[in-house]
């Protein structure tokens, strides 16, 4: 599967990761989904609701989730995924990510090294929860 993200939106995710460094940033990705492709149209950054360990943990609460779903509905979009940053850590899902992941969503992880956004990768949980599949991250306009 591939995820198409407009360059400006990818840049905003990267900047969000730099702003919250050394803590993790997080947010929703809204867009449309069809067979084999997700198109990201909009992102909604979220405060990291963790009260401790924010340098390597993020949390989005059910209330934030409900609000994002209704915002997506109003805009005629779908909630298709989540982005977050890994400060000083690779742009690969951790075991903790796998343990807490939802299927179907795409996950974009931005690595932020020493306060500077580095590579970004897209992932999707396998249906049997055994791991993540790397998605093709395409820059759109």
């Amino acid at each position, binding site marked *: 599967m591939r995820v198409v993200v407009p360059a400006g939106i990818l840049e905003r995710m990267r900047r969000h990761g730099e702003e919250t460094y050394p803590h*993790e940033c*997080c947010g929703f990705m809204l867009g449309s989904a069809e067979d084999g492709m997700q198109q990201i149209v909009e992102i909604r950054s979220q405060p990291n609701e963790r009260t401790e*360990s924010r*340098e*390597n*943990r*993020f*949390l*989005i*609460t*059910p209330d934030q*989730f*409900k609000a994002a*779903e209704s915002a997506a509905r109003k805009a005629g979009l*779908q*909630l*298709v995924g*989540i982005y*977050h940053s*890994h*400060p*000083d*850590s*690779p742009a690969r*899902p*951790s*075991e*903790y*990510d796998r343990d*807490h*992941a*939802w*299927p*179907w*969503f795409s*996950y974009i992880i931005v690595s932020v090294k020493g306060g500077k956004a580095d590579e970004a990768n897209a992932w999707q949980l396998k*249906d*049997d*929860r055994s791991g993540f599949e790397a998605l093709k991250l395409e820059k759109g306009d």
Partner: protein
Amino acid sequence: MMTKVRVEIPTALRAFAGNQDTVELAGETVGELLRELAAAYPQMKKHVFDDQGKLRNFVNVYVNDDDIKHLDKELTRVGAKDVISIIPSVAGGALTQQQIQRYSRHLIMPEVAMEGQQKLRHARVLVVGAGGLGSPVLSYLAAAGVGTLGIVDFDTVDFTNLQRQIIYSTGDVGRPKLEAAADRIRAMNPDVRVETHEDRLTSENALSILKNYDVVVDGTDNYPTRYLVNDACVMLGIPNVYGSIFRFDGQASVFCQEDGPCYRCVYPEPPPPGLVPSCAEGGVLGVLPGIIGTIQATEAVKIILGKGTTLAGRLLILDAMKMHFRELKLKKDPSCPVCGEHPTITELIDYEQFCGIRGEEMEARDLGKEWEISPRALQEKIRAGDDLVILDVRNPEEAQISRIQGSILIPLGELPERVAELNTADQMVVHCRMGGRSAKAVEFLRSVGFKKVKNLVGGINAWAEEVDKTMARY
């Protein structure tokens, strides 16, 4: 016929429900509905429930606008008018690169791996006593990445500690042990949170301190605290990793783990006071706590990981002189006063009294002033040329460290059979290291007719401190 209830499916799970956003299912409680859902759409099951069949912690279920966590959880009753929705919370995050490297030798082992390392990180271990056993226990648990280490101790670091208490350095002498140990642990591994309890563990504070921990490691050097730790662990249901050391001999076990025995099942009564010498009285080989303490640390890690077979129900006995390990099978005693079928000890008791220690103090005080002499007063008598016998009741090894000139040596244990070597007519001053054994000697001599004997208060260490500063203290 059972009423049908509407269940809203979140986008992330719709693909498993034929892309429907709502399904109708039969059930009277939320739990029943969720199990119906999993039965109807088997692929959804592993995303909603964990391997134990419990709701995953990031799956939130709402009845209308209320989270079932605030209602009756999975037993929340539902009717035809209710709408059930599954709302995700989203969590994630990384182990930092540095942490991955630090724990890499754990992460590549199937018995630990990422899951086990997270268990260690979330574990809370209390170490009672930061001494010979506590040193290796704290060092290895900190290095292993145990997230929270509690330490109970109220002592300061002393030169006599350094031969075995390897968490301290020479420069730490005089510092509170808690402060020095916490510094060392933080330097070893900044991931570890250290919680210090600068207190003697007592019947009043034990439950409130211990209850916040998953595992207790007993590194105490005395019977009252050992029984106190045991009883508190039984009452709170916390595994108690036990170790003890003396000279070349060591023991280790795990008590109060699941259905295993407790310390009292094995040792219902403490030994009579004074019968079993402490390490301070009898000495201990410096590396011995290193062996026993690392066994305790190993057991604590296994308990946290939930892997392997612990020493629960077994007492491991080490004779380091022969380097011989032996194992005794231990059984839970159904009549044990704390963990048995009809416990008679249901709250913490007075452990000093239970171990007869307060009684001993009373006797020592009963000796009375007329049976005591201070180091200065003894010095005066020697200067004045009084006719005086100085009786040393320590062991010969101790007499090689320090000796008051002209003293005669009869170890306390040999005194009854060698009492004929002494003359009741002589003025006599008896001493040991600190004054405890010599008090017993004076009492014995009094009982067999000696009237002119006195106990040197504070022993030869006080003499070295007050009279002869060139003499070694130990």
